[in-house]
């Protein structure tokens, strides 16, 4: 026994301590509990993996999943669902990402949240998130995965709405939870179908049975299962049409955006699809849908990222877009490339958000790029680390993003060349908007001097309006670590490591040029951003004026939120109120009931004469009634 349960239980203990007693604890104690529990969990992951021989590099390490059974959760008829944790090669990767990045972000948050109210509450939620996320990746059956899945959604809801005095924050929290519920609706239907067809929800049993089945050529129930699973993934991982909650989720504190809404939780959908790869491989139609939805999301989210003015929103759309890339990889059959991108993305996107947090911290809460500028000399470490992250996401070699993006695009080319080309254009746009944000923040005129930067104070960094300042060590050390990972993380060969689970994608001969094209797209994107925002800052405005209609659409995010409101939300609420409640319930049903009541009263008016008020006449009625009942009973009984 390797006591896998300790991995999630340690953060849960942290949650319990801070959640129950945090109000009375001193900040250093809260820090120690919150950060310590996650660090211990990370160490336990390292210990467990090394005990399993992962770092030894043997060929046969973890080829079979290592599984532990704790107790039966639900037992009904032939259906048995256990609380079982398992580690295989995929889980090992996810464990390292979640606990590793999680530890760094916890450390960072100590500095970032130092001046916030509800300090203990924040760390309690963050620890609870770690518990659920680790349950999600360790769970050895679909229902346990679902526990983690819903649990991380809950923590996301709580942390988005962390500033619960603000309506926009709690609105965003509700939106996240409810849109995710729509995804979970698909997921749960998939779970029902799986249990129905395989009689079990254990990964081992289900995938073992799937292996022996023929690949579904036309859409059948395997395709249905795969597509329903993907609906779940689209909710959690913010894919079209369910991505709308993620940009709003930026209402939460920035470490939350980094940990939950960039590095870990939103990749749960990618993990789940990769975990169920056997099912998807037996349903080619579904796989194609995954690729197309992923690609469309990557592309459209990138266009929306072009015109955002809030630094966190830029990165949020970039997250949506990058998640689209991951699904493109999965859909192209390159599962390991998708997971590879999960990892590198966790490095550079966590860094982008933490860097953005550092910028926001420096600006005392300002998030509007239009009110930044010239921060390079005030926050040199943030500047340098954000540069690393930006280059990495732009896919420039040898940075980490290049390796994983290349693996995805190569697979996409083989799957369908047009997908590759759309992917390349998207890569160019990505490079452009990330560097746009970078240049707007760090170069040019310091626009905050005239604007005064105390408008968007939902960060409530109430310490002075002096010059921007570099963040404390607890914040920049995690930045530095992530910067190094963003630089060299691409050399951790995830596809090779995952080869026993997912067949390695051989690059077809004669397609080496695809790499150069995609790198060139990234370079062009950066160059254009430099031209627009460094060399001649007049160009963007001119372009916005020339292409005013498309610009307006992009700026307003294609009016998708408004469209959903008009098409789904408002009709549901209005219809429920004016039709179901007032007409059906109060009008029809209650009308009928009260109508019966009125009739009864009219009849009662006649019968009232029997109610003379005299006890004796009541007694007579009772006797008479009894006689009738008894007579009726004995007559009917006599007929037996």
């Amino acid at each position: 026994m390797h006591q896998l349960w300790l991995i999630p239980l340690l953060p849960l203990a942290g949650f319990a301590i801070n959640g129950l007693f945090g109000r009375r604890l001193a900040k250093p104690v809260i820090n120690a509990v919150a950060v310590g529990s996650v660090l211990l969990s990370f160490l336990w992951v390292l210990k467990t993996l090394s005990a399993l021989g992962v770092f030894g590099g043997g060929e046969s390490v973890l080829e079979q999943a290592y599984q532990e059974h704790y107790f039966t959760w639900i037992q009904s008829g032939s259906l048995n669902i256990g609380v079982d944790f398992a580690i295989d090669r995929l889980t090992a990767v996810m464990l390292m990402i979640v606990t590793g990045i999680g530890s760094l972000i916890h450390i960072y948050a100590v500095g970032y949240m130092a001046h916030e109210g509800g300090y203990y509450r924040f760390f309690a939620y963050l620890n609870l998130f770690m518990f659920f996320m680790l349950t999600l990746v360790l769970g050895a059956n679909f229902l346990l995965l679902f526990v983690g899945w819903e649990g991380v959604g809950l923590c996301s809801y709580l942390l988005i709405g962390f500033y619960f005095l603000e309506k926009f924050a709690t609105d965003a929290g509700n939106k996240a939870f409810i849109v995710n519920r729509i995804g979970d609706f698909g997921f749960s239907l998939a779970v029902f179908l799986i249990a129905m067809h395989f009689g079990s929800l254990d990964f081992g049993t289900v995938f073992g049975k799937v292996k022996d089945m023929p690949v579904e050529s036309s859409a059948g129930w395997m395709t249905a299962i795969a597509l329903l699973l993907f609906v779940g993934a689209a909710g959690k991982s913010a894919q079209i049409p369910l991505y709308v909650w993620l940009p709003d989720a930026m209402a939460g504190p920035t470490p939350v955006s980094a940990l939950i809404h960039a590095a870990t939780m939103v990749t749960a959908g990618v993990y789940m699809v990769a975990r169920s790869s056997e099912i998807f491989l037996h349903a080619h139609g579904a796989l194609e849908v995954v690729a197309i939805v992923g690609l469309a999301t990557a592309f459209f989210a990138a266009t929306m990222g072009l015109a955002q003015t809030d630094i966190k929103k830029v990165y949020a759309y970039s997250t949506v877009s990058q998640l689209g890339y991951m699904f493109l990889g999965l859909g192209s059959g390159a599962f390991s490339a998708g997971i590879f991108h999960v990892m590198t993305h966790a490095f550079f996107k966590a860094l982008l958000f933490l860097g953005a947090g550092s910028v926001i911290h420096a600006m005392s809460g300002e998030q509007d790029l239009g009110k930044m500028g010239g921060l390079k000399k005030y926050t040199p470490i943030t500047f340098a680390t954000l540069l690393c992250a930006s280059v990495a996401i732009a896919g420039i070699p040898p940075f980490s993003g290049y390796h994983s993006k290349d693996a995805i695009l190569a697979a996409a080319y083989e799957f369908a060349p047009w997908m590759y080309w759309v992917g390349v254009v998207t890569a160019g746009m990505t490079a452009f908007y990330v560097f746009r944000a970078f240049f707007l923040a760090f170069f040019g005129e310091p626009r905050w001097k005239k604007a005064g930067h105390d408008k968007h104070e939902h960060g409530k960094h109430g310490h002075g309006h002096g010059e921007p300042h570099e963040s404390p060590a607890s914040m920049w050390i995690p930045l530095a670590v992530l910067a190094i990972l963003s630089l060299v993380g691409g050399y951790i060969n995830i596809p090779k490591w995952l080869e026993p689970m997912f067949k390695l994608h051989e690059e077809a001969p004669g397609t080496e040029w695809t790499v150069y094209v995609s790198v060139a797209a990234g370079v062009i994107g950066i160059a254009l951003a430099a031209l627009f925002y460094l060399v001649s800052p007049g160009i963007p405005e001119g372009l916005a004026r020339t292409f005013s209609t498309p610009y307006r659409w992009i700026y307003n995010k294609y009016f998708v939120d408004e469209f959903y409101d008009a098409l789904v939300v408002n009709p549901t609420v209005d219809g429920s109120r004016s039709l179901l409640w007032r007409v059906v319930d109060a009008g029809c049903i209650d009308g009928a009931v009260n109508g019966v009541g009125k009739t009864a009263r009219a009849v009662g008016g006649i019968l009232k004469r029997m109610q003379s008020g005299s006890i004796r006449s009541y007694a007579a009625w009772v006797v008479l009634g009894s006689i009738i009942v008894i007579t009726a009973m004995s007559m009917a009984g006599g007929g037996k």
Partner: protein
Amino acid sequence: MSLLNIVLFLPLVGFLLLIFTPKGNDQLPRMLALGISLLVFVISLGLIGPFMGSTIPEGYQFITDSPWINSPPIRYHVGLDGLSLWLVLLTTLLTPIAVLVSWKSIGHRVKEFFAFLILLEFGLIGVFVSLDLFLFYVFWEVGLVPMYFLIGIWGHDRRIYAAVKFFLYTMAGSVLMLAGIIYLYNRAGTFDYVQILGQLQSGRLVLSSQAEMLLFSAFFLAFAIKVPLFPLHTWLPDAHVEAPTAGSIMLASVMLKMGTYGLVRYSVPLFPNAAHKAAPFIIGLAVIGIVYGALVALVQPNMKKLVAYSSVSHLGFVVLGVFSFTQQGLDGAVYQMLNHGISTGALFMLVGFLYERRHSLEISAYGGVATPAPNLAIVFLITTLASVGLPMLNNFVGEYLVLQGASQVNFTATVFAAVGVILSACYMLWLYQRTFYGKASESLSHHMPDLSAREWAVSLPLLLLMFWMGIYTQTFMPPISAQNARILQQYQQQQNRPQLAVTPDRNFSASEVANAR
């Protein structure tokens, strides 16, 4: 004297004691009611004993079977099995909680209030343990009377309307059931449920399919009104809104279960063929109720109405599970009865706490409660999450099993029912946001103390159970599962009886048959 008789009659003793306490002293009836209800609860824990072994005993435990009325032969026949066990415990647990909740909020006619509350407990336990149809009917009506008075005397402004509506609705159903019971007596020569069931199953008593359908309908109507099943639900929101908090708790947590319990105990075993025939229709109503209840809950401006409509939605799941006739469906349905009792009972209790502070049930009168009363906010949040079916909390297990069972029989219905799960998040989170989040107004902050020790004392057991029933289901599930397996087995045997020529209008999958074993 078996333990079950003590648990059943101690509340009656308590009722009589309360009636005869001297007037003018309000503290005495409170203490007395609390003492008795706690004593009943502690004793009732002993009922679990026989069901906790590695093998669940077959048949009823704690049986008492003695004549009550000689002619017609009505017997005092009571017993306990895996189906009724937890419902009895739910009743005995919630009664002291209801007493404590009413500790301060009931200020006039205190003695009578607690007397009726304890009498209600007597009636409710009686319903769950009766094994004689006439006895069952008597308890069914006994429960009705105290609830009528609880609403009618201690309720809010429109209490008379609500109480009369509640009474008439329920009476309308139960009169038909009485007719059905008398008919069965005439045919079988006994009111004894076990004997009638035995006669039916051995073929000594054969009902024509028409008679079976009529009987099924008579019983079903009584139960469906009590559940309440759409479209027979409109008494519920009124009753809840007008009832005092303790009345709402007992009504939602236990009384509605009389209906669902009746479906599992009587409707399905006694009239399997009619149940089978009516199932698609009933599943349809259940699913409509799930979605409809949720949608109407969404737009309620009144907290109690919102929770009441959510009950319509949640109990739709129970009915769906029962009429799926699968092991998972039935297990989930029975589990969901208990879950709903815990989490909706807790919701009504918490709404009551809010009402005591602010004297309003309108959601718009609140906002920002989390700031002055953080503990209340946390307890409410956990209850909300339980109610929306978050895993590791109780409702998830029930809803999952119901939907899993239903999906094997009717996938379309499952899809629509699952929409109800989405909607539950919508109305509950919206309620929570509008009540607890945002900035608290000055007047609200002044009248919003956090949970008192007494309020903690009634919240904690319910919170504990939400987690316990969500994580370690093995404490509760085996007796339920074993009993449901027996019900299903008998159901299948009835289905397979050749002389009854059942039209195969629904296809049973192989897996379902396997599940039933």
